[in-house]
Every structure is written in structure tokens, then in C-alpha cells.
């Protein structure tokens, strides 16, 4: 009889533990982090050729355009895009002028401010400022190449333009 009581007591205790286990709750920490995201992509290559002039005037500038896509999740209003070239365009050309100029006009994505036409050089310059968080594509990027008679001529030359998103 005593043995039976003991076994019964153990059974009750075990059932109680099972009941406790089934009602068990727990928690853990789920950490969600959104990192700073700044992505820019340019749609296509650009080629600019100056080949004509009106007599008595400087050569007719060459223009070409492409588009860029941008995503930034910084809403501080201080995000900007800068641009610089791998070589000073003014140093190109076989004439005495040293005045070849490559400029870019980058339209601003919604909420940003375009700097308008910016003459590019090896020192980075703002082309778009005051951007808010935005994700936009097909934003216009227009290039203009200007020369004078004193620029002389220039064989096909690649200039690398580097764009940087800065928060």
C-alpha cells in the first residue's frame, strides 16, 4: 500500500511538472538593424565629339546624356553627390589653350537640389545636394564638352568620372 502511495505521489508530481512545462513561456531578443544604404548606378556610357564650328566662333559644344538611379535611406537632408574626374580635362588637347571643359548637369532626385551645370575637375564638386531618403531611377545626367580654337584637337580619350554619395 505504501509503495502504491509513493508511486501515485510521484505520478502526480510528474504530471504537475508536465503541466508546468506546457505553460512555460520564454522570450528572446530580435535585433533589427537597417544599415546606411547608398547606392548609385549609371545607365550607360557617354561619348562626346566636337566636330564642327560656325566660322568665327568657338567649336560647337558636344552634348550627350544618360541617366542614373539612386537609393539612399538617409533622411537627414545632408546627403549629397559629388563628382570628379581622373584627369583634368583642361590639360587635354594639342593646342595652347588648356581650356577643354567637361561639365555635367545632374538632375536631382525628388527632394534634392541640383547644382546645375558643374565644370568637372580632379577635385570633387557637389552635383546634387540636400537629398532626403529616396529611391529613384531614370534621373537625367547631361554632359557637355566645350572647346575653343586654342584647345586644338584631341584623339579619342577616356575620362573617368567618379560619383560619390556622401552623408
Amino acid at each position, binding site marked *: 500500500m505504501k509503495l502504491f502511495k509513493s508511486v501515485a505521489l510521484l505520478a502526480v508530481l510528474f504530471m504537475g511538472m508536465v503541466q508546468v512545462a506546457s505553460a512555460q513561456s520564454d*522570450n528572446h531578443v530580435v535585433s533589427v538593424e537597417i544599415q546606411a544604404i547608398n547606392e548609385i548606378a549609371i545607365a550607360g556610357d557617354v561619348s*562626346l565629339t566636337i*566636330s564642327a564650328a560656325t566660322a568665327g566662333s568657338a567649336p560647337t559644344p558636344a552634348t550627350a546624356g544618360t541617366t542614373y538611379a539612386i537609393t539612399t535611406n538617409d533622411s537627414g537632408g545632408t546627403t549629397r553627390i559629388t563628382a570628379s574626374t581622373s584627369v583634368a580635362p583642361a590639360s587635354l588637347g594639342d593646342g595652347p589653350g588648356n581650356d577643354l571643359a567637361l561639365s555635367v548637369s545632374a538632375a536631382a532626385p525628388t527632394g534634392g537640389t541640383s547644382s546645375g551645370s558643374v565644370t568637372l575637375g580632379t577635385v570633387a564638386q557637389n552635383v546634387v545636394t540636400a537629398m532626403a531618403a529616396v529611391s529613384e531611377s531614370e534621373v537625367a545626367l547631361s554632359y557637355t564638352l566645350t572647346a575653343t580654337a586654342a584647345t586644338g584637337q584631341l584623339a579619342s580619350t577616356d575620362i573617368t568620372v567618379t560619383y560619390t554619395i556622401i552623408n
Partner: protein
Amino acid sequence: MRRIQATYWLTFAWIALFMRISAAQTPPPLPGAIQLAASTMTLSQSITVSVQQINELSISGDVNLVVTTSTPGSGLLPAVDGASATYSLTTNDQGKKIVGSLDASFSPGISLFLLLEGPLGSTSSQQLLSASPIDLVTAIGYSAESDLTLTYTANATVDAAPNGAGEFRTVTLTLMDN
């Protein structure tokens, strides 16, 4: 009684073990290294540029020269016009010159001279025009100038016959390599 105490101790041991296992289930925090996100992004694009050789020349205005007077005993006075026509040129090269020619000669006794105002750094001289091209301006380089003057001088001898409404000739200026 001892058996009951043993049972209680066994129960407490189960509960203590269970609570320890539960406490050990709290996960560690996520690693902080992923917080190091770059705040700038850089992209490069290649732009191909070129400037081809450009040589452009244009003339504005026609010229009408009329020989009407003379100094007695000295022949006919030349007719001069340096205001009716100008020319413009653009070249992004050096070692260029301008030559001039007539499409046909004038009648005997009539001659036409032309003096071009040269762009900066060039050399010009008055020349008698004929059907053969002749140098008018030399040593032209890297110029873009407009409204440069053309000064025509028509000479006629007394042997030149009056020609009514005049003789029309076309003067061609060509910008070319020296």
C-alpha cells in the same frame, strides 16, 4: 517518512534543473560588428571625349567697285572698298593659310587686288587676284575670329573699256594647310 522526504527532494531537484535549463535559453545579443555600415558609396563612369580638326571660313557681303574718276595726266583712280565684306574663320589647328582666286580673269586693263585682315599672329599681304590661287594670309593658327576685313582695290588703265553694268567675278577664299 524517509521515502516521502526522498520523493520531495527528488521533486525539488527536477524543478531546480528545469528552471536552470529555462534560464539558459536566453539568446546572446546579436554581434555588433554589422553596425559598421559604410556611409559613402562611389561609382566611376568612363566618358569618351574627342575634338576633331575643325577648319571653317565664311564670307559675308558682296562688293561693288566702280572706277569713276581720274587725275588728269595720271590715269584712272583705283576704286577701293574695305567695308562691304568681312570674313570669319575658325581653326583649331596651326600652320594654316588662306589663298584667294578668281573664277575668271577680268577684261584687259582691269585688275583686282585683295588685302585680308589676318587673325592674330598671322601674316597678310595685298595680292593681285587671278584664276590661280595665291597666298593672302599665312601662319594662321588656333583662331576663331569674325568680322575680319577684306579690302578690294580695282585698278583700271585707260585702255580698259567702259563695261556698262560691270563685270562680275567670284572670289574664292580657301583655308588650307601651309
